[in-house]
C-alpha cells in the first residue's frame, strides 16, 4: 500500500511527508531544527512524550489564529509554516522568560549544569535577562532525597517526561502531576518522599529529566573519603554497560568502547584493585543457569513445586518492581543475587581472605549504569554486621565527573587491564549490559551443561534487538526451550500478568527494568531523546563480546578456580549462602485499626 503523503511549505521550502507527520518532523526533513523542550522521543523504543506543554516549539501557520506547537501539530496539505518570524521569535523568547522566571538561577552549583536542556535552550534563545524577576514569585517545594534519586521540584519545568516514563513506560505509577496551576508539579502521592512511594529507583525519570529537578544521589564524596583513608583497601567493580557509554561524556562517539582507558582512569583515581562486574556476571550465569536447569529438570520430571518460568534477578529495579506489584510471585524469580552483590559477597569473603584483610577494611565500590544499584547495595540483607557487601555504588555519570575532577582526560589515557582474579570475564559477562544479554549468556552455558555438547554458534541474534517484548525458542538438543525477554517494566508487567494467570508458556524470562537494558540505565550519560545512542551502545557491547577469547561463562578459568577453591559447586550450600537471596512482599498493606 502506498503511503498517503502531504505537501507543505516550511520557511518557503516545499516538503512532502507522510500523512500524520508533525510540523516539527517535517521541518527536520528540510534541515530546519525547531527547538523543542518538553517533547522527547526515543524512536527505536517507541517512547514519545508529547504533552505540548512548554510551548517553545511554536510556529506560525498561515490562516491559524494563534501559534501552533510544532511537536504536536500534524501537517496538512498546502500548509504554509514559518518557523522564525518576529512573532514566533518574540513568543518563544517570552515563553522562555516565563519558564526561567520560575526556575532557580543556581546553574553554578546544579548537578545538571552543562548537561541541562533548559540551560542550552536559554543559551540558544539568547536569553540574557529575565524581565520582572524581582517581583516574580517562584513555586517552591520540599526537597526529597532517597537512596538513589534526589528530587528538587523547584527546578521542574513540567515537561512531564518523568511522569510519562514512570507511568506509561514503566507502569510504576510512583509519580503523577499534582496540584493545579502555578503550583502544579510532578510528585509521588501526598508529595511524600520517593522512599514512601512505589518507586523502583529504575532512574528512568532521571534519565529523561531535562533539568536538575531529578538527579542521582552523588556518592563520589563517599568514594573520595574511602580512597583518602589509608586504613582502607578500596576496590572497584565496573558494570558491562559503563564501558560502552562512559566515552560519551568525554566527547567520544556513542558506542566507543573505553574499557582499557576506564581501567587506567580508575587506577589513577587511586583504587587499589580494578575489577570487573563481568566476572560476577559469569558467576551469576553459573548460579542462575544451574538453577534454571535444576528447575527445568524437576519440572519435566513432574515436580509441581518447581515453578517455571524462571525469571532473571540481576536487575534491582526489576526486583523492586515485583516485590511491590507481584509479591505473590516472589518464588518465581531466580534466587541468584545480582552480579553487583555477588561481586561484593565474593570480594568481602574470598578476596578479603586472599589479601588477608578484615572485610571492614575493604571498601567495595561499584560503577553502575544504574541508580537502583545504590538502593540495592543498601538493602539490609546485603550486609554482614552492618558492613555492606558493596559499600558504594556510583553511576557512569558520577564516574565521568570524578575522572574530570581528577583532571584526567579519558581520551589520552592508555589502555589498562583489569586486575586478577575478579577482573577476568568472558563475552557472556559483557552482554549482560544489553537487553537479552543475560538470557543469551545463560543459554550459552545452560545448553552446554544440559546437553554436554559444544555450541556451534554463539550469537543468538534472535534474542537481541530493541523490541519491548521478544520471544524465541532455542533447541536444547531436541528439547525446545521457550525464552521470553522484556525490557522496560511495563513490558515486564505484561509477561508477569501472564505468569500470574498461569498462561505463560516460557521456561525462562529475562527482565531488565530499563528500556534497552543496562545500556539505557538511569545512571548512564544522558541520551537527550536520541535512541541512536542506545543502539550504538548495544552494538559496542556485542562488539566487545565478539573480541573476547572466551565467550561462555563456564569457561572463565577464574570462575572455575573460584568454585574449586572456595564455593564447591554451583548452587552448593556455600554458594547459596553467599550468592543467593530471597524476596520480600513490599505491597502496601491496609491494616485495620482495632
Amino acid at each position: 500500500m502506498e503511503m498517503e503523503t502531504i505537501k507543505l511549505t516550511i520557511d518557503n521550502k516545499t516538503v512532502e511527508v507522510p500523512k500524520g507527520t508533525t510540523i516539527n518532523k517535517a521541518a527536520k526533513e528540510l534541515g530546519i531544527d525547531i527547538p523543542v523542550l518538553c517533547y522527547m522521543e526515543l524512536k527505536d523504543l517507541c517512547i514519545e512524550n508529547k504533552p505540548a506543554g512548554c510551548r517553545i516549539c511554536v510556529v506560525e501557520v498561515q490562516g491559524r489564529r494563534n501559534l501552533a506547537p510544532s511537536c504536536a501539530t500534524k501537517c496538512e496539505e498546502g500548509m504554509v509554516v514559518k518557523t522564525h518570524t518576529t512573532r514566533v521569535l518574540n513568543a518563544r523568547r517570552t515563553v522562555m522568560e516565563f519558564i526561567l522566571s520560575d526556575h532557580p538561577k543556581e546553574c553554578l552549583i546544579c548537578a545538571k549544569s552543562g548537561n541541562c536542556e533548559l540551560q542550552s535552550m536559554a543559551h540558544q534563545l539568547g536569553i540574557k535577562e529575565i524581565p520582572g524577576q524581582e517581583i516574580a514569585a517562584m513555586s517552591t517545594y520540599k526537597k526529597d532525597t532517597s537512596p538513589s534519586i534526589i528530587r528538587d521540584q523547584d527546578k521542574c519545568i513540567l515537561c512531564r517526561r518523568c511522569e510519562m516514563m514512570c507511568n506509561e513506560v514503566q507502569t510504576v505509577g510512583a509519580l503523577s502531576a499534582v496540584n493545579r496551576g502555578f503550583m502544579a508539579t510532578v510528585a509521588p502521592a501526598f508529595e511524600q518522599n520517593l522512599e514512601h512511594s512505589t518507586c523502583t529507583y529504575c532512574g528512568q525519570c532521571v534519565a529523561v529529566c531535562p533539568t536538575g529537578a531529578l538527579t542521582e544521589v552523588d556518592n563520589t564524596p563517599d568514594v573520595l573519603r574511602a580512597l583518602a583513608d589509608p586504613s582502607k583497601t578500596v576496590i572497584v567493580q565496573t558494570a558491562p554497560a559503563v564501558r560502552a557509554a562512559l566515552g560519551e561524556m568525554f566527547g567520544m562517539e556513542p558506542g566507543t568502547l573505553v574499557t582499557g582507558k576506564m581501567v587506567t582512569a580508575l587506577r589513577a583515581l587511586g583504587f587499589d584493585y580494578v575489577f570487573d562486574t563481568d566476572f560476577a556476571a559469569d558467576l551469576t550465569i553459573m548460579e542462575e543457569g544451574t538453577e534454571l536447569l535444576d528447575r527445568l529438570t524437576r519440572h519435566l520430571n513432574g515436580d509441581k513445586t518447581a515453578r517455571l518460568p524462571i525469571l532473571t534477578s540481576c536487575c534491582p529495579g526489576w526486583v523492586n518492581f515485583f516485590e511491590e506489584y507481584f509479591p505473590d510471585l516472589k518464588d518465581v524469580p531466580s534466587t541468584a543475587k545480582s552480579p553487583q552483590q555477588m561481586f561484593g559477597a565474593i570480594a568481602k569473603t574470598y578476596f578479603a581472605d586472599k589479601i588477608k584483610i578484615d572485610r571492614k577494611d575493604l571498601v567495595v565500590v561499584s560503577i553502575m549504569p544504574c541508580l537502583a544499584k545504590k538502593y540495592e547495595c543498601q538493602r539490609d540483607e546485603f550486609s554482614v554486621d552492618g558492613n555492606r557487601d558493596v559499600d558504594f555504588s556510583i553511576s557512569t555519570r558520577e564516574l565521568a565527573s570524578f575522572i574530570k575532577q581528577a583532571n584526567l582526560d579519558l581520551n589520552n589515557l592508555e589502555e589498562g587491564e583489569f586486575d586478577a582474579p575478579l577482573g577476568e570475564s568472558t563475552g557472556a559477562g559483557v552482554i549482560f549490559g544489553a537487553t537479552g544479554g543475560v538470557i543469551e549468556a545463560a543459554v550459552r552455558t545452560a545448553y552446554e551443561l544440559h546437553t554436554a555438547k559444544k555450541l556451534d554458534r554463539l550469537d543468538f541474534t534472535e534474542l537481541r534487538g530493541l523490541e519491548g517484548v521478544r520471544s524465541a525458542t532455542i533447541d536444547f538438543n531436541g528439547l525446545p526451550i521457550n525464552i521470553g525477554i522484556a525490557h522496560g517494566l511495563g513490558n515486564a508487567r505484561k509477561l508477569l500478568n501472564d505468569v500470574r494467570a498461569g498462561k505463560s508458556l516460557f521456561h525462562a524470562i529475562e527482565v531488565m527494568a530499563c528500556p534497552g537494558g543496562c545500556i539505557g540505565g538511569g545512571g548512564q550519560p544522558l541520551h537527550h531523546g536520541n535512541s541512536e545512542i542506545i543502539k550504538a551502545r548495544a552494538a559496542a557491547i556485542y562488539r566487545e563480546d565478539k573480541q573476547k577469547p572466551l565467550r561462555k561463562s563456564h569457561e572463565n578459568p577464574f570462575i572455575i578456580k573460584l568454585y574449586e577453591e572456595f564455593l564447591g559447586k554451583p548452587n552448593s550450600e556455600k554458594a547459596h549462602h553467599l550468592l543467593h537471596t530471597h524476596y520480600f512482599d513490599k505491597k502496601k498493606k491496609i491494616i485495620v485499626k482495632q
Partner: protein
Amino acid sequence: MPREKMQIIVCGGTSCNGNNGEAVIDNIRLELEANALENDIRVVRSGCFGLCTMGPIVKIMPGDTIYTKVTPDDAHEIVSEHIMKGRKVERLLYKDPEGKKPLTTEKELTSHKKQIRIALRNCGIINPENIEDAIAHKGYEALATVLTELKPQDVIRIIKDSGLRGRGGGGFPTGLKWEIAYKNKSDEKYVVCNADEGDPGAFMDRSVLEGDPHAVLEAMIICGYAIEAHNGLIYIRAEYPLAVARLKSAIQQARDYGLLGKDILGTGFDFDIDIRYGAGAFVCGEETALIHSMEGLRGEPTVKPPFPAESGFRGKPTNVNNVETFACISPIILKGAAWFAGIGTEKSKGTKVFALAGKINNVGLIEVPMGITLREVIFEIGGGIRKGKKFKAAQTGGPSGGCLTEKHLDLPIDFDNLTAAGSMMGSGGLIVMDEDDCMVSVAKFFLDFTVEESCGKCSPCRIGNKRLHELLEHITKGKGTLADLDRLKNMSLVIKDTSLCGLGQSSPNPVLSTLTNFRDEYEAHVTLKKCPAGKCKDLMEYFIISANCVGCTACARVCPVGAITGERKEPHLINPSICIKCGACMEKCKFDAIIIQ
C-alpha cells in the same frame, strides 16, 4: 371573586424613581383624594417595567394602558381624563420610534419587549419535578417529530439552517458540530452536555437545569438520534446540588415514561443518559479537559485536533454542547429553522441568556435576541446603574472576556462584534461596573481567577498569567512604570498566542481590553501613582475635611489602629503613616467629612 377594579400601577424601579417617580405617585394619590376616589382606586408600586428610558411609567388596569415619561404634573390629566372619563391621554402614550400610531396597551408593547424566552421558555413556568407538566408545555413533542418524521441528516440540516451557535462561549456552529460527529462512523458515540458552568457570575445553565431539565434531556436525545449515538452524559458541577437533584429526578421520570432507555416512543431508537460530576475546575469547561475529567483523570486539555467529534470520550466520537445550546433545540425543531434564524443578527441567530450582575439595578437572568445593544440591556432591561452612578464598563465573557465601555453601548451584541471589540460572548456573564470600579483592579481580579484555575499544563498559562497578575499587583501598589504597561501588553499577547487551550488563549483579554479602553487609568496608576476610582488601597489617603468635621469622635472610635486624633467637638486628623486604609472611618462619618484623596 370580585371583579377587576380600576387600579393604577406606577413603576417603582430605581430608574423611574430617580425620574420623579415618587412625586408622580404622590400627585396621583392627591388627585384621587381630591376626587374622593382614594378608596376605590388603588395605586401600587411595581418593579421595573424594563422601559427605563421611557420612564416614569404609569399603567392603568384594566385595559393595560401604558403611559410613558409621566411627570408629576401629568397626574391631574390622568385622573381627570382616564380614570374619571375613561379617555386615554394620547400624548402620554408610547410612540414607536418610526412615529407610527401610538401603542396603547402593554400587549401592543409586547413587540418592544426586549426579551424573548427560548432557552428559558419553561423556567419559572413548569414544575421541574413533574414530567407531565413539561409534557403539557410541549416537552418531548420535538423528539416525537424527530423520531417519526426526520432522518438524522434532516435534523442536522435544520440545526445548521437555524444558524444556532454554541452558547458555551466558543460560538461554533452547532449543526456543523453535529454533522462532523455524524460523519465519524463508530460503533459507539457519545452526546455530552457540558453543565460545568464555571464563569464566576454566570448561572444560566443552572437556571435551565433547575427550571426545565427536560428541555436538556429532550435535546440530548435528539442529538443522539442525529449523530447516531446511544449514550448521553451530563457533566455537571457538584456545586449545583439542586440542579443535580432535579436532573436526577427528571432522568428517572423520563426513563419511567419510556422517553429514555430502549425503544423510545416505540420508534426503536435507544438512548440513555448518565450524570458525571465536575469537582471545581474551571478549565473543565474546555471540551478535551471535560472529557478527561469524565474519564476520571485530571482535567487537563490536550491539543486539538483530534477534536472530540473524532476522538472524544473513551476515544469515541463525542459531541459536546452546552446546556443553553441544548435548551434551544426543541423550539427550533417545532417552530422551524427559519423562525430561529429570523431572530438575531446575520451571523448570530436566536437569543442569548445573560446574567446581569454588578452595579446594575435589575440583577438577574435575561434572554435577549442577538443584536440587542448593550444600552438596551443595561439601561432598559437592567434598569440602569445602581445609585444613579455613572456607567463605566460592562465585562462580558467572564474571565476570558473583556470590558466594553461607553463607546460600545450601541454596538449590537453578537459573537463577532464582541470578539471584534476585544471581549467575547463567553457563557453570558455581564458584569456592570460604575465609576467606583478601578479597571486595573478588575483586570487583577480576573487574573487572580485565571491563576487559580489554570491547570498548569502549559507554561504560558501556568507562569505567564501569574506574572501578569504580579505585574498588575505591582501597578496597583503604585510601583509600576510606563514600561511595565508595554510589558503587560507583550506578555498578554504572547500568552494568548501560545497557550494550549481556550483558557490561556483568552485569559489576558481582561488585561488587554482594559489596557486599550482605560489606558489613562493605568497611566494614572503608574505615573501619578493615583487610582482614579479610589479603589487601590496603596494609592489613596483618607483625609478629614476640617470644615465638615464636627468632632463627634465616631471616626476615632472606629479606627482599628488609632490613626485618628482630635479633641471632642474639634476637627479630627488622620495620621497617614498609621492609617491602614480600611475605610471604617469613612463609613462611620455622618457628616461627609472624610474623603479619599
